[in-house]
């Protein structure tokens, strides 16, 4: 396709939607960079069906770091 490069990919679109909702979330602690990482992991592993415990471990790790960062701040 001419524009198959997908100038706005579903990943970017999903991140945009999350950040827009986050704006109205009271006391949001998770930053945009963390969201980018979380969405990135979910996007890259979207075809992995069945056992996703390894993916969940990665997501948990990202959130753990984010919560530690939030505590420090």
């Amino acid at each position, binding site marked *: *396709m*001419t*524009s*198959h490069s*997908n100038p*706005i*990919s*579903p*990943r970017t*679109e*999903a991140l*945009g*939607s*999350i950040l*827009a*909702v*986050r704006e109205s*979330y009271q006391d*949001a*602690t*998770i930053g945009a960079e963390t969201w980018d990482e*979380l*969405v990135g992991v*979910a*996007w890259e*592993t*979207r*075809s992995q*069906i069945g056992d*996703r415990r390894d*993916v*969940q471990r990665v*997501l*948990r790790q990202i*959130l*753990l770091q*984010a*919560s*530690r960062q*939030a*505590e420090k701040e």
Partner: protein
Amino acid sequence: MQLLELRLVNWGPFFGEHIIHLNVTETAPVIVFRGENMRGKTSLLRAIVWSLYGQIREQDGRTPLGVDRMVNLDAALAGEVQFGVSLRFSHNGAEYLLHRSGTAWEEQAGKVAVSHISTDLIPTGGLPYPAANIPEIIDSILSHDISDFFFFDGEMLNRFEERLRDDRTTSQGFVRAQVERALGLPFMKGLEADLDAIQGSITANMNMLLKKEKKHNELTEKFNTKTDEIASTEKDLAALRKHDSELAKEIEELDSQLSKVDEIKDLYYERKNLELEVAKAEDTIRDFRDSIAELTEANWWLPVANVLFDDYEKAESDIEVAEIADRERFKIAYQIDLLEKQLGTGVCPSCGQPIADHNGAEVREEISKLQQVQAQSPSIGLEDVRRRRDRLRRFNNSRSALHRVFEQEQDLGRERLRNDKRLQRIRQISEQISGNAVDIESLERNLIDRKTTRTRAAGLIGSLESKRATLKQEINSLGSQIADQPEVDPTERSLQRSVQEALTIVGNSFDRFRASMRERVSTATSELFRRLTTEKEYSGVGISDDYLLSVVDDQGRSLSMISAGANQILTTAFIGALAECSVEEAPMVMDTPFGRLDVGHRAAILEWVSTFDTQVILFVQSGEYDTQRDSHLLGGKIGREYTIERMSPTRSEVRAA
């Protein structure tokens, strides 16, 4: 994904081994296969689809087609043979060889049986993947669910078109699921499910800790009860969803069977109309026969009409000749009379001058000559000829009467021929209908029954989902209370709160994400539709929440009726837009896609195809694509061109053009 090479062995009309190179460059990514009907274009498309998914469908796009129907008959007749397809393709920089094959033999006359179907997927330079993993790997490269957006033929386009214009619940569900899968929407649901699992695990660990410490028993008991309850609800929900999906499949199947019955109904009404036409035509035939009989009775002489007309014409011409001869004889008699008078009186009777004596001999000689001419001139009885002509006068229109009879006989012959064709079609339809033992009423009853059950199941699913949501809220609240206990590790507590925050935000973002993706595909469809349509009053396309399509005019009104050609352009625009917005990158393979399109629309699609930089494979027949006329529309983007030649009814060959 790009297809690099297709190898066929005893597949469809392709006897023996055939290797077709498909690799192309970005600057010339279009491959054109030209071949008339029944040459094997659809067999090539099916070869690609079967190699990837191990399943193919009939031309109606619904009914599964057994692979035994794709085995070359000549090969099967020769005894037990190997058949199959190998597809070499590249994806994300790696190359793969996918090979699917089996053994075939002629079980009974004209019926082929197959066995030992095996599949191998080998990455170049690597080891073959385990057979059990191949479907999942192929699905991750190009999901079977959305492959219809990339590999399609005219019939499938029709089927998809029906679904896009059909507001039945099953169609909506099918389209929405397929489209959302193509747009990558499920990945966000996947993230939500992962976060939910993480949250459950963190809270369960905290609960376990409190239980070990034998503190906050009431809280932990409550948490356990609620988690048990939600587990059981989820189990019920999963069972109901499974049931719902089975019902959806059954409804789909019943719909498909009923659509075939629709065809039978159509055939029935076609036969009914033909029978009426036959009855009418028989009246016309009778009228012609009567009229011919009347004409022949009134004009009993018609068999000799030509002779009579010739006689009449001859009488007319005889009269003419007789009249001339009569006039001639009169003139001679008059001259003789004059000359005799000269001799008798010696004076010219005309001028009264005296005639010299020496002239007497000359006058006598002149009289003698004239008498000879008079004796030689034919003596035709003018009155006889006139009487003969008058007797024949009634036949002076015999030629036109004959012509009238001849024309009516021709009309009668044509009408008979048309009627024979009608009767032949009636016999064909009767055979088709008699071979079909579908009980329409029972099918319709079953369909209503399944739909009612599904509606009930949907109600139950809805109430279980709301119960689950309430339980989830209660568990979350209990989880927060558990996390607040002093025994809980502060890091875990903080993590639980972060996961909860992530879960809530992701859950609340899905609708916005879905809407924005739908907006993208809607804009892309409208743009492409405007580009492809030749009708200037169409301003774009409206897409409902369930992806039902409608054409919008320049006043912003949705048009309920558009032509079949415009419908095909609408569907093509939607499929093209989806492929453009899709998360998957794959070749676009189109089999006879221009069936119902006029020259303008065909040109617009070819010009659109010329803007592609990814692989496009077109299977076309001469009626829809002409190299001389159309190749310039592809703007030099043709990378490869093949013709499919028919060697015999069971053998074709692909040749580089």
